[in-house]
């Protein structure tokens, strides 16, 4: 993965730039020591690393504004960073960039149960937003796997999803408003406690823009009352195709489970070895979760098991209590940890129409055999968001490249069947150079025109999302 050459003029002015940043921030909020900047050299896409020029950790919107104003004047690229959990390299720095971390901004600013929203600083972690409203039996719906660590800032930048979006939607569907600082330091408010914009939907545009349009410092989030209860059922099949058909039939029948998770054999085997959840020996496994009162849960699970039985499952296991529910989820929730134990892995995030599931799984199997790298599949089947995990050995020269090439083939396949490159992780650098597989030049041009408006000098996270050759002219003009 190529990154642009750092701007020599910025590198030589490091001391002056750091001094100016120290004027507007507390001493401990500017990190320029080489050993310490290493903590910011990568995010969860650890294959790529580069220490930044320096890192700043502002505590208020005003401080963020002051920092951006200076960087704007100095022509220094800024890479916003939440908790650094991006799997796509969204927070990967370049040597000439300032990392702007929002980790110190983690306060709850306002909680309003009557109007069902919470306003937080965006450095707050996803799970602690729910933590702040749990007392009143409310929750924040988007639940990415990294929710213990990931920040709301990153969730907004990547428009993060999670296992439960089939019912509750992703970040953009649960984001009511933001306070955002533009690259020149201007502070704007979009949305608020009311629904939908009065003009153009700039809030919808900002969500998922990967930190390229502004730095979001505060967010108003929709909170929901927790359902009375939830319970999963585990359904095992002897073929991926049949499991895929079952998913489609459940959806068609009018049941809307909160989650339908799918695991294939390689994934089941790995999870079983790691977590010993007691999963059956089978080719494909579904975990379907429904919500409501006891009676409502029973009614929905009754319908789901009835549909599942028509597909001749190997096993059908309904959770009778919280303990059994926990065990059903145990393997799925430890899937990534289990994979990490066996091997290095690359986690893909392509999304496909649910109807293409059997075809895509078959093709992934073929590609995996051709290349000689094992692929385990675990994903949100209800919405077609796949997470193929390609297993490889990073210490073996050439394996990372082989793995990336296979990943690219799988993502191209997703696009071919009518899907997309990324369902919830974002483009970052990881899928940047595949963007022209999904989009024609005019499509990318229209997206870049948006960045031109918000960040005319292309200083915010500039080397992400768009293939470097596509954004080259704009970045070059900005550097002059």
């Amino acid at each position, binding site marked *: 993965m190529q990154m642009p050459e750092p701007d020599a003029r910025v590198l030589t002015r490091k001391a002056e730039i750091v001094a100016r940043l120290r004027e507007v921030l507390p001493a401990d909020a500017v990190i320029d020591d080489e050993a310490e900047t290493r903590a910011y050299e990568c995010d969860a896409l650890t294959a790529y690393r580069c220490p930044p020029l320096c890192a700043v950790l502002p505590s208020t919107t005003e401080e963020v504004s002051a920092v951006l104003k200076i960087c704007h004047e100095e022509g220094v690229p800024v890479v916003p960073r939440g908790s650094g959990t991006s799997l796509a390299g969204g927070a990967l720095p370049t040597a000439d960039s300032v990392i702007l971390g929002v980790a110190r901004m983690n306060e709850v600013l306002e909680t309003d149960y009557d109007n069902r929203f919470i306003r937080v600083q965006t450095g707050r972690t996803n799970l602690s937003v729910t933590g702040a409203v749990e007392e009143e039996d409310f929750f924040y719906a988007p639940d990415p796997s990294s929710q213990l660590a990931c920040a709301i800032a990153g969730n907004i930048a990547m428009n993060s999803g999670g296992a439960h979006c089939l019912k509750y939607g992703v970040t953009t569907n649960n984001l009511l408003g933001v306070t955002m600082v533009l690259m020149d330091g201007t502070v704007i408010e979009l949305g608020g406690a009311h629904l939908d914009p009065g003009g153009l*939907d700039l809030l919808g545009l900002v969500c998922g823009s990967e930190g390229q349009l502004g730095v979001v410092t505060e967010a108003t989030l929709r909170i929901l009352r927790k359902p009375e209860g939830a319970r999963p059922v585990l359904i095992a099949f002897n073929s991926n195709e049949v499991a895929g058909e079952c998913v489609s039939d459940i959806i068609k029948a009018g049941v809307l489970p909160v989650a339908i998770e799918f695991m294939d054999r390689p994934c089941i085997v790995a999870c079983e070895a790691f977590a010993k959840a007691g999963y059956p020996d089978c080719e494909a496994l579904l975990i379907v979760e429904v919500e409501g009162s006891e009676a409502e849960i029973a009614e929905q699970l009754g319908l789901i098991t009835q549909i599942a039985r028509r597909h001749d499952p190997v096993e059908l296991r309904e959770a009778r209590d919280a303990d059994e529910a926990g065990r059903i989820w145990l393997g799925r929730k430890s899937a990534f940890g289990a994979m990490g134990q066996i091997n290095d892995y690359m986690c893909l995030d392509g999304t496909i129409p649910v109807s293409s599931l059997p075809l895509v799984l078959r093709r992934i199997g073929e590609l995996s055999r051709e290349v000689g790298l094992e692929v385990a599949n675990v994903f949100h089947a209800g919405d077609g968001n796949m997470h193929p995990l390609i297993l490889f050995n990073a210490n073996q020269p050439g394996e990372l490249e082989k793995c990336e090439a296979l990943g690219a083939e799988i993502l191209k396949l997703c696009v071919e069947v009518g899907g997309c490159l990324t369902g919830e992780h974002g483009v970052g650098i990881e899928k940047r150079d595949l963007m022209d597989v999904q*989009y024609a030049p005019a499509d990318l041009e229209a997206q870049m025109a948006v960045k031109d408006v918000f960040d005319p000098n292309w200083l915010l996270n500039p080397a992400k999302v768009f293939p470097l050759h596509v954004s080259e002219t704009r970045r070059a003009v900005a550097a002059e």
Partner: protein
Amino acid sequence: MRPETETELAEMIRAASGPLRVRGGGTRAIGKSAGKVLETGALSGIVLHEPGALTLVAKAGTPVAEIEAALEAEGQRLAFEPMDHRGLLGTEGAPTIGGVAAANVSGPRRVQAGACRDFMLGLRFVDGAGRVVSNGGRVMKNVTGYDLVKLMAGSWGTLGVMTEIAFKVLPKPAATATLVMAGLSPEEAVPALSQALGSPFDVSGAAHLPEGPGGGPLTLVRIEGFADSVAYRAGRLSELFARHQPQVETDAARSAALWKAVRDVEAFHGKPGDVWRISCTPSEAPALAARLGAEALVFDWGGGLIWALLPAGSDARSLLGAGFRGHATAVRGGGDVPTFQPEPAPVAALSAGLRARFDPRGLLNPGLMA
């Protein structure tokens, strides 16, 4: 002008030398717009409907009725419950799906299921320079690049002319019930609606009609789902609101009629005056409504949406006052005030910048939104 293909539309826009008034079915014409009419009605037809994937793709000029019929046949629906503006605006014609998307039209279920924009998965459009652009796709989750779908939703044809839109659709529930509470004031109704929406009972509609179909005030709470579940939740909500002596309407047709009255603001049909649509913090609705001195009101979205019928030439924004933190749109009339809520300067600059990029010659519905 009535292009029959996307290519023809792009050619027409490229060749245009003056303002164009973009029109789907012509049923939602709001604000002042001049120019040559550009109709999308010939770009019509359902391109794809995959019930098992909850997806429908249609050309922008497809009549909403055609889409609803196709969905109905599979036991599905557009969950955002788009309003029909004809009764309110006194217009005729067939509403198109492109018009729904361009105006981000959502009904009572917006409060639970989301807005039109939340169900738009992807689209194709021709911008003001005649460039054909595609964004998003037809899958439920997609964060590949910027979300221009949201930008186009509710842009009222000012950035581009949509040609094809992909929607997420949902199954129709087996049963519906509506809790009906009579005689409440807005000050009593809005907190009750807030309590309903904050309950674990998955309320899909929360509205207050100061003048209901029978004349007196009606407060409505809707529950949908499987029959037993609906009965259970209606029962629990009835206990919760025992003090207001709710009646439970379980007849599907009568329940639907009540929600259509809310959705289409039937209380204002045939009455003269200006119609304002106000999006606000729900709990502030009663106080805001009192400031308007309206001739008629409808509260939807648990109070978060106020429809107000005001004397011709009124400026609702000045009545709402400087501290008002939402937005107000003059849907019908409104005198000389801007149709859409003016934005603070730095936000207005971004909107203007986007217009300049997507419609550099200022051809598409010029002046409608800014």
